């Protein structure tokens, strides 16, 4: 998978370059040329951003994994926005040669007609949509609504392009590629047309406000490995009303006959509702996504925060005779620690060293904890938990001589 990581950046570079090459201006005033090139480069980057949000396992794997995909999706979308802001300003600045009034009339919606209004509306929707991503952290639903405003901005931007340039072949190609990407994302990813049907076989409480589900396939089983996650959308049950959205859940075990186990902690509106789940409920799964835990003979250090213990449970439950492994498990209180008893029971067996740490409401003292780990620089480190914990653990490990390439971290904040 690592070998394909160049594909996402390559798409982000190639598409704006191709668009600019087609529209390359000759003999035009400099600011008009800037306007044309920024508009087309922004369009190319928007298209790249749309392609990189197509979230199916096959496409995701080909483009270097979901984390790579999202990183470049965000970067290309942000740069596209910047370039598309430059586009109208450069057109107006071009008019300054004639007079400030002409410059303003080039920009002012009051002096334009519907093709320019489409462009303005597209820009305002992009602005509003990105405010949802870059402004104060929103709940999932409002964030999602604002993110769909971005899709509206793209559609209006394409209409602006068509209204001004008509049916030139590159324009039609860009419109077709954007439509396919948006449609694919909506139908396959958001509506889950290709999702695999499973059924909730059993539910176990593994900690306060946390449950572990065993899911059994109704048809084809997903080919998953420890360390990976799935997107799950639950159906309604006799006494249970689901949210109907796909949410990511890490696999906590992979069992025979395609059975999968996932752990769910009540962290938001939807996961709180899922605590009342009933056996027999149907669930649609997409995936698997994420990098599978690579087999290694190198001693390991795992650091888990709260429900971030889940991928390590899948690895432990699915391997026999792994390398020496130390697991630092951070949680607020023992009652909130998923799988605490099972992990304690495994500690001391097959070189597995379990170190549970109840932090209460304090920030964990990672420095002291890491100083108790022997041969730290020789270990392969794997981090999973809240972003703040992952970031501080990453920094602390680097400071203690662990090479950057030996540190792997999971982030499941795919907004």
């Amino acid at each position, binding site marked *: 998978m690592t070998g394909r990581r160049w594909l996402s950046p390559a798409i982000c570079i190639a598409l704006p370059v191709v668009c600019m090459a087609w*529209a390359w*201006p*000759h*003999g*035009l*005033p400099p600011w*008009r040329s800037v306007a044309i090139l920024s508009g087309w480069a922004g369009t190319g980057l928007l298209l790249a951003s749309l392609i990189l949000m197509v979230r199916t396992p096959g496409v995701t794997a080909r483009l270097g994994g979901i984390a790579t995909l999202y990183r470049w999706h*965000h*970067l290309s979308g*942000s740069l596209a*926005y*910047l370039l598309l*802001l430059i586009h109208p*300003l450069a057109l*107006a600045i071009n008019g*300054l040669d004639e*007079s*400030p*009034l002409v*410059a*303003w*009339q080039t*920009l*002012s919606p009051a002096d334009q*007609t*519907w*093709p320019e209004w489409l462009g303005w509306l597209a820009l305002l929707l992009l*602005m509003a949509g*990105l*405010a949802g*991503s*870059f402004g104060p952290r929103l709940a999932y639903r409002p964030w999602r609504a604002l993110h769909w405003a971005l899709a509206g901005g793209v559609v209006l931007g394409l209409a602006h392009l068509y*209204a*001004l*340039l*008509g*049916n*030139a072949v590159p324009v039609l190609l860009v419109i077709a590629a954007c439509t396919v990407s948006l449609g694919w994302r909506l139908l396959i990813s958001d509506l889950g047309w290709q999702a695999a049907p499973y059924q909730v076989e059993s539910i176990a409480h593994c900690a306060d406000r946390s449950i572990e589900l065993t899911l059994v396939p109704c048809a084809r089983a997903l080919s998953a490995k420890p360390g990976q996650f799935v997107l799950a959308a639950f159906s309604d049950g006799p006494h249970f009303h689901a949210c109907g959205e796909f949410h990511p859940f890490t696999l906590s075990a992979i069992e025979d006959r395609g059975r999968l186990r996932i752990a769910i902690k009540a962290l938001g509106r939807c996961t709180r509702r899922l605590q009342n789940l009933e056996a027999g409920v149907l669930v649609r799964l997409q995936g698997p996504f994420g990098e599978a835990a690579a087999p290694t003979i190198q001693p390991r250090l795992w650091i888990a925060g709260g429900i971030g213990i889940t991928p390590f449970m899948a690895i432990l439950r699915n391997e026999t005779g792994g390398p020496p492994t130390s697991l630092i498990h951070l949680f607020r209180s023992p009652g909130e620690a998923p799988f605490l008893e099972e992990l304690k029971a495994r500690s001391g067996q097959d070189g597995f060293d379990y170190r549970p740490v109840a932090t209460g409401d304090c920030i964990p003292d990672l420095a002291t904890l890491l100083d108790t780990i022997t041969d730290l620089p020789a270990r392969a480190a794997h981090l999973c938990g809240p972003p703040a914990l992952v970031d501080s653990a990453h920094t602390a490990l680097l400071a203690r001589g662990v090479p950057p390439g030996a540190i792997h971290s999971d982030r499941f904040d795919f907004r």
Partner: protein
Amino acid sequence: MMRGLYLSSTVLFWLAVAGLWHAAEAPPEPAIDPPSPAEAPASPGRYSTGDVARHGLAEDCWMIIAGEVYDVSSYIPDHPTDPEILLPWCGRDASEAYRTKGTGRSHSAYADRQLAQYRIGTLQAP
């Protein structure tokens, strides 16, 4: 980093828009050299194909479109697609090219309204 890029670019964009609006609102400086009557635009007239043919250069480009004569010299740099596409039609009847854009589909109503601004007269009957 991307959050900073979004916030700073959005603020700068609106500042630039406000600056352009403010510049347009300022009273214009008095003209030092008012245009002479000779330089003033002529009223719409009637032109023959021969008259139009004498304006066949990029910097002096007249076209006949649907029986009307247009001086599009100042518009050529602003044409959304490559201006080179327009140049072969300078000094000629471009009605068919305008109607089909070479692909069988016509220009938009918006383009029609823009074109009207460049009309200088009508084509004289042969």
